[in-house]
């Protein structure tokens, strides 16, 4: 029996510590991990808690991230509660096995501490790795601060392990800006945290010798399509209601309310920025300052990135006249992902907002409040003109001559 850890009501934790504590509190059975900056302290933290008797589990040291996720897949198929963490190049090396995990319907939790992908080599935060995962069949939840990184881990386990879902889930946080930034985190007791997620309920576990099953089978054109369709069906229909139920139950437990789409000052906003990660909160602070000057600005934050909350986004954006989509990842050859997704979300609606795109913050480049004010100045001009007054895609915070496309 693992020892209980006494926590203060508010601990000053960075995002990595918050995630590691959550893995301890839900008593993860197996962590197979290969450390990489900036996610290293998450798996290091779990290993320390295990060594000191605070977790009953296994820590498997492996030779690569590909092996780390492979180990997680094996442990999850065997019938355990499984988690790991990674970033950047490590995430890229995991990609093949990510598809195995989701296709085999194994509820593994992966903490992704978002970081740029080289070349050039860079350890700092952007969303390149998060974007790379978006077709992999995983649920993707996004934290904006250490508190969210803690709370969303509990949500992730509860939803992923639900027998109606049985899909793996990623909890994303911004490298350094969240992972290495200490802020006050309201804690749950060990008992309350474990009680919320509940005891792991195995399904089709390989170690149930009375009911032998096969995992990781081959299907050709006879059945592959049907398997992928079932996987998509679960991701598209089962997940959103389960996340909403988990958010509601978590609010009862903690008083903290999460939404599929987070909004700030959107009730009467005539223009909005849409972004992810720490930028959402910085933009919220800017919006409060603009509101004091009578400017009707708002913020939309993506909390659940996959499955994409299309209907919820269409609803919150229905009255705005200009939208700025902010992508912290280089789209290399087209517009940013959020531009494409929001354009697709709104195309069949009555909303005919002017939509533009900003690429920012690559490799950890700072997004300042002044940058966000500049974006809202663009959006205001678009509102007043009723059409695009700027290039469709602009780079902000970039040194040298202004760069834009389309």
């Amino acid at each position, binding site marked *: 029996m693992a020892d209980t850890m006494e926590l203060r009501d*508010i601990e*000053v934790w*960075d995002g990595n510590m918050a995630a590691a504590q959550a893995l301890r509190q839900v008593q993860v059975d197996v962590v197979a991990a290969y450390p990489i900056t900036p996610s290293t302290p998450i798996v290091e933290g779990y290993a320390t808690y295990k060594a000191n008797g605070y977790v009953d589990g296994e820590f498997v040291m492996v030779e690569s991230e590909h092996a780390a996720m492979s180990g997680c897949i094996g442990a999850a198929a065997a019938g355990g509660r499984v988690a790991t963490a990674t970033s950047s190049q490590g995430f890229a090396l995991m990609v093949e096995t990510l598809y195995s995990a989701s296709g085999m319907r194994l509820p593994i939790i992966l903490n992704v501490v978002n970081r740029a992908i080289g070349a050039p080599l860079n*350890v700092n935060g952007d969303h390149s790795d998060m974007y790379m995962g978006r077709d992999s069949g995983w649920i993707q939840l996004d934290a904006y*601060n250490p508190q969210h990184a803690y709370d969303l881990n509990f949500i992730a386990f509860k939803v992923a392990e639900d027998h109606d879902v049985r899909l793996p889930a990623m909890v994303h946080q*911004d490298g*350094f*800006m*969240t992972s*290495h*930034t*200490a*802020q*006050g985190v309201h804690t749950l007791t060990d008992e309350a945290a474990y009680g919320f997620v509940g005891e792991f309920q195995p399904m089709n576990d390989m170690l149930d010798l009375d009911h032998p099953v096969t995992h990781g089978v081959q299907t050709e054109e006879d059945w592959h399509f049907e398997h992928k369709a079932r996987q998509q069906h679960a991701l598209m229909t089962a997940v959103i209601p389960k996340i909403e139920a988990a958010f509601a139950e978590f609010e009862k437990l903690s008083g903290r309310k999460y939404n599929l789409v987070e909004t700030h000052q959107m009730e009467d906003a005539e223009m909005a920025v849409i972004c992810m990660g*720490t*930028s959402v*909160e*910085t933009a*919220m*602070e800017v919006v409060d300052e603009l509101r004091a000057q009578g400017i009707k600005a708002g913020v939309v934050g993506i909390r659940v990135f996959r499955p994409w909350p299309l209907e919820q986004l269409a609803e919150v954006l229905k009255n705005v006249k200009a939208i700025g989509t902010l992508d912290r990842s280089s789209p290399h050859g087209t517009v940013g992902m959020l531009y494409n997704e929001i354009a697709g979300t709104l195309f069949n609606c009555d909303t005919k907002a002017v939509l533009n795109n900003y690429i920012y913050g690559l490799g950890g480049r*700072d*997004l*300042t*409040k*002044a940058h966000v004010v500049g974006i809202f100045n663009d959006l205001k001009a678009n509102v007043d003109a009723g059409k695009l007054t700027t290039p469709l895609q602009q780079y902000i915070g970039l040194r040298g001559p202004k760069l834009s496309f389309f």
Partner: protein
Amino acid sequence: MLEIRWHSRAGQGAVTGAKGLADVVSTTGKHVQAFAFYGSAKRGAAMTAYNRVDDKVIMNHEKFMAPDYVLVIDPALVYVADFTAFEKPDTVYIITTHLTTEELIASQPKLEGKKVHTVDCIKISQETIGKAIPNTPMLGALMKVSGMYEMDFFKENMIRVLKKLPQKIIDANMIAIQRAYDEVK
């Protein structure tokens, strides 16, 4: 909003100092943020760490900061780092040096007309902790200059923050904090 920027060399404990300060401040019900620029993370490389303190939840995640306090814990950085970047007219500087405040300002004219305090955190940490780890003494100096907290309250909380260290190291840190509090000019 109170904002503090630390100038340090990697390995001197600025991150630990910033996080320790955030921890102590958090116990008083204020909201805190502590973070750093790591750069290439080589020991000895110049780096910066940051604190924000506010009465309301801190939503701002920009790295840009116009600091109220600048804490320099390596004596050479006042000559090589841009430690006055984005200063305000009333930014307060607390600088680790073996020089007097007057000698320091004479050697670094950028400090003329500024609010400058000096304390030798390197010497204090060498004589108390036994190593050049100038982070905790700098916090003692900050408590004196800012009047942020009573010394007894601060030390009591720092003992909790440092609780994983051996007792004699904790005791040495408390002496270092008190000495810097008493010696800062």
